């Protein structure tokens, strides 16, 4: 059984805990054990922290990495923002002796030392590279006949020089994982576009940030999808909370359900709906719920 530490971040455990449950339970079914990364903090949020003070960003991210180094485990994240922050920090610390020394002086004061012994993984690239769509397909008990709008998000694949995951304009690896659950990844205009939340933009300029999510939602709606599939709780929040905000601010209604890949996998593996937390979203679409019920038959609880 493979073993990794589970870096929760902020938004999954503190806003969408269904993602946390779905991740632990679906990965267990695939033979992957996740261990709590006790005492981890915010990654910290790259948009604000990298814009403010590089050393504080690097030191806080490195502290999170050292917690997992001390357990001798690679880190698993379920968030593109956390992935970006932790991978970039891990790479800088491994490659820049000057910054490593400076940050280690700070970490020493709180009883840690960055050694550079582990890797940081994201659930999607990990499943794609270490498990593969065929094994996931074999673990699926209820093929989910859904048409979905897949949103990769930016920091899963970019900057490509740090991520090494192939094409950033037309990637396929996430689509393959979605299709392994029996769902169809529907093509839609500007599929790789940003949700608008990152870089501190949602915090700084909400209305403009929401205009970007409206663009995405319009294209998804035009493609006639059942739901959005994402791999980042911050994109997830931008799509879910964002739909309620654009309704109030711009009088635009979409009602497109928002589902993290771990939750889609949970649906396809027959996990109880009550544990997946999809109904805890702000956007609840009855038509979608009925479709899930029809597909899953007796598996709902």
């Amino acid at each position, binding site marked *: 059984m493979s073993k990794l530490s589970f870096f*929760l971040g*902020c*938004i999954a*455990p*503190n*806003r969408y*805990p*269904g993602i*946390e*449950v779905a991740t632990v339970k679906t990965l267990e079914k695939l033979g992957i054990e996740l261990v*709590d*990364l*006790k*005492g*981890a*903090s*915010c990654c*910290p*949020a*790259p*948009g*604000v*922290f*990298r*814009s*403010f*003070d*590089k050393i*504080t960003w690097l*030191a*806080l991210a490195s*502290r999170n990495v050292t917690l997992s180094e001390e357990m001798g485990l690679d880190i698993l994240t379920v968030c593109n923002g956390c992935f970006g922050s932790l991978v970039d920090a891990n790479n800088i610390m491994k490659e820049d002796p000057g910054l490593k020394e400076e940050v280690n002086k*700070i970490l020493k*004061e709180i*009883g840690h030392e960055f050694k550079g012994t582990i890797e940081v993984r994201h659930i999607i690239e990990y499943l794609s590279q270490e498990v593969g769509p065929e094994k996931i397909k074999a673990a699926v008990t209820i093929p989910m006949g859904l048409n979905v709008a897949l949103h990769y998000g*930016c*920091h899963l694949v*970019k*900057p*490509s020089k740090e991520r090494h995951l192939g094409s*950033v304009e037309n990637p396929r690896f996430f689509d393959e994982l979605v299709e392994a659950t029996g769902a169809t990844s529907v093509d839609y205009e500007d599929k790789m*576009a*940003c949700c*608008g939340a*990152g*870089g*501190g*933009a949602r*915090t*700084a*300029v909400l209305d*403009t*940030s929401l*205009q*970007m999510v409206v663009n995405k939602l319009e294209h998804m709606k035009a493609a006639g999808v059942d739901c959005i599939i994402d791999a980042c709780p911050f994109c997830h929040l931008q799509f879910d909370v964002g739909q309620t905000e654009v309704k109030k601010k711009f009088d635009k209604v979409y009602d497109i359900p928002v589902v993290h890949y771990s939750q889609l996998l949970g649906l396809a593996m027959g996990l109880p709906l*009550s*544990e*997946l*937390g999809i109904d*805890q979203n702000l956007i609840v679409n009855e038509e979608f719920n009925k479709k899930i019920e029809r597909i899953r038959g007796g598996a709902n609880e």
Partner: protein
Amino acid sequence: MSDIIKTSDFDMEFRDEVFKEPDADKITLCFNCTGCTSGCPMAEQEPEYNIRKFLRMANLGMKDALLNSPYLWYCTTCYKCQERCPQGVKNVDTLLKIRTIAIDNGIMLDNHRKVSQLVIKFGHAVPINDDAKEKRKDVGLDDTPPTVHKFEDALGEVQKLIKITGFDELVADKEETS
């Protein structure tokens, strides 16, 4: 009619400061193809946000105009421009460096300050609340996640780290001066 750029506005020390970021000096290689801005999803919404122009301004040392532009904070760091640049300019990484210089010069949005203060207080930019605790219990989890929220010592480490780097003072509420 375009504004006239005065050479007296050029601050080469500012440019040197920007160039301390690894590979930020690649902005000198820009030949204005506009691949960055034409693909930028934020520029589509707000044309005043122009990453190419911002990096040209940095290269010319136009410190005041650049640091005081409200559009400096519009980038979502999607990295599309950086991926597409034929000259290998580190658009996003360089913009983030420019933002840190703005912060050092006391230019900071209130909302960003508040998010930073949440991390200092709770160790999370998006901390737990009562509603989230109920949601956690409803999906069968402990109401408090095993992060700094559960371990006081760990939160103490984060707060000590932030004191050492001086980040707490950097984002402290400003005394109102008239």
